[in-house]
């Protein structure tokens, strides 16, 4: 059924069913374990005087209302799941321009994230594949930072957060990152205004955030607080983030997240080895299930191999101007099957 629908969209008749492929969970867990293994040695935060805070982002950081809505929806939904007590997070994507910074997308942590009540390690393989797709439409998008939740009421980054973030921000443009902490059930009645000194802190480890908290965002029981950290900073500083009308550029990506994450490990390996490989998403209104297409040009001019990823199924199609045809792929991991099909095409075989 799905195969026939897909083939109709691709413009030719159905010849077979798409093959089911094994999950890519292993690849994602590998990346998680690498990140754990490379966890940095302890770095002690050294709070600086408020007067030393640099103001690179002051008054210039904005977030699209669609992105904020996404984060709140995710946070509320997450709390209702069996993993609701775990930390969760988002990769913040946007543009840095001379006029300021705009957060335009928040990519989810993925179902294969490694998380617990006191940590979260997002599925960066799936997020990197999603980012490659986003950059096709918006080439100047960049990574701006990370938002994540704390299960208690600690509404600022922890020492553990600083240990990782302080070593990560040099990899960001301008060597500075934007960070948000999400807190559930933060008690506003005990905290008038946004003064850091009045916050109700749990497990306060004494590290004060520089500057004055000038903005936070709330929706129901969910709250987000914003911070910045630059290379060489001894600790985070409060950040003013202004909501502005605008969509979440990652909305379409999120609708396809299941298929992206399922095949992310293979796709990540393929894009490294095949620079001509193109990725695209079939708009959700055109298909019953999220569908992704990989296109690899073939040696003969005008021909390409299309790999259709639909749910957990895969279809290979040799597209020619005259006679497009389906190729029955082996039931192996996606990248292995891709190379097997490419080898068959080079031999002139179809099976």
């Amino acid at each position, binding site marked *: 059924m799905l195969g026939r629908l897909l083939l109709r969209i691709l413009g030719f008749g159905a010849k077979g069913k798409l093959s089911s492929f094994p999950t890519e969970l292993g690849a994602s867990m590998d990346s998680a374990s690498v*990140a754990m293994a490379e*966890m*940095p040695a302890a770095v002690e935060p050294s709070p600086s005087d408020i007067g030393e805070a640099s103001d690179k982002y002051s008054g210039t950081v904005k977030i699209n209302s669609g992105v904020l809505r996404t984060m709140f929806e995710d946070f509320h939904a997450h709390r209702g799941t069996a993993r609701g007590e775990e930390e969760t997070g988002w990769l913040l994507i946007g543009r840095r321009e001379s006029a300021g910074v705009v957060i335009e997308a928040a990519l989810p942590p993925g179902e294969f994230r*490694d998380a617990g009540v006191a940590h*979260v390690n997002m599925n960066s393989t799936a997020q990197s594949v999603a*980012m490659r797709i986003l*950059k096709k439409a918006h*080439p100047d998008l960049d990574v701006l930072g990370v938002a994540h939740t704390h299960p208690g009421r600690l509404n600022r980054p922890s020492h553990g957060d600083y240990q990782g973030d302080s*070593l*990560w921000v040099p990899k960001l443009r301008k060597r500075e990152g934007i960070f948000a902490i999400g807190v559930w059930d933060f008690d506003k009645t005990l905290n008038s205004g946004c003064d850091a000194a009045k916050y109700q802190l749990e497990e306060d480890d004494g590290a004060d955030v520089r500057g004055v908290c000038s903005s936070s965002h709330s929706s129901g029981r969910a709250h987000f607080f914003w911070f910045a950290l630059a290379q060489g900073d001894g600790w985070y500083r409060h950040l003013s983030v202004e909501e502005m009308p605008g969509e979440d550029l990652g909305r379409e990506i999120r609708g396809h997240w299941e298929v992206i994450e399922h095949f992310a490990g293979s796709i990540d390996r393929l894009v490294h080895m095949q620079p001509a490989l193109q990725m695209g998403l079939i708009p959700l209104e055109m298909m019953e299930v999220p569908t992704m297409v990989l296109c690899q040009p073939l040696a003969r001019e005008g021909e390409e191999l299309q790999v259709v990823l639909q749910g957990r199924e895969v279809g290979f199609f040799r597209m020619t101007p005259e006679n497009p045809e389906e190729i029955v792929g082996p039931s192996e991991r996606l990248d292995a099957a891709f190379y097997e099909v490419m080898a068959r095409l080079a031999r002139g075989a179809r099976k």
Partner: protein
Amino acid sequence: MDFRPMDSEERRRLLDALRGNAAGASSIKMDPRTTTFTGTGSMDADTPRGENQVIDAIKSVPVHYQA
């Protein structure tokens, strides 16, 4: 494709860009479609980063944990 020699103004701009780049102060911008020299930019602030740099940053996102 047009292989005409550069005029004196274009040559001067390119030499300035090469010197600035050698000094580590500026980047050299190129039109990806025609490979034409299109000017200079600040090495860090004005030049959009390549996809691989962005992907490298994503894959380096640290574990966030409460210690």
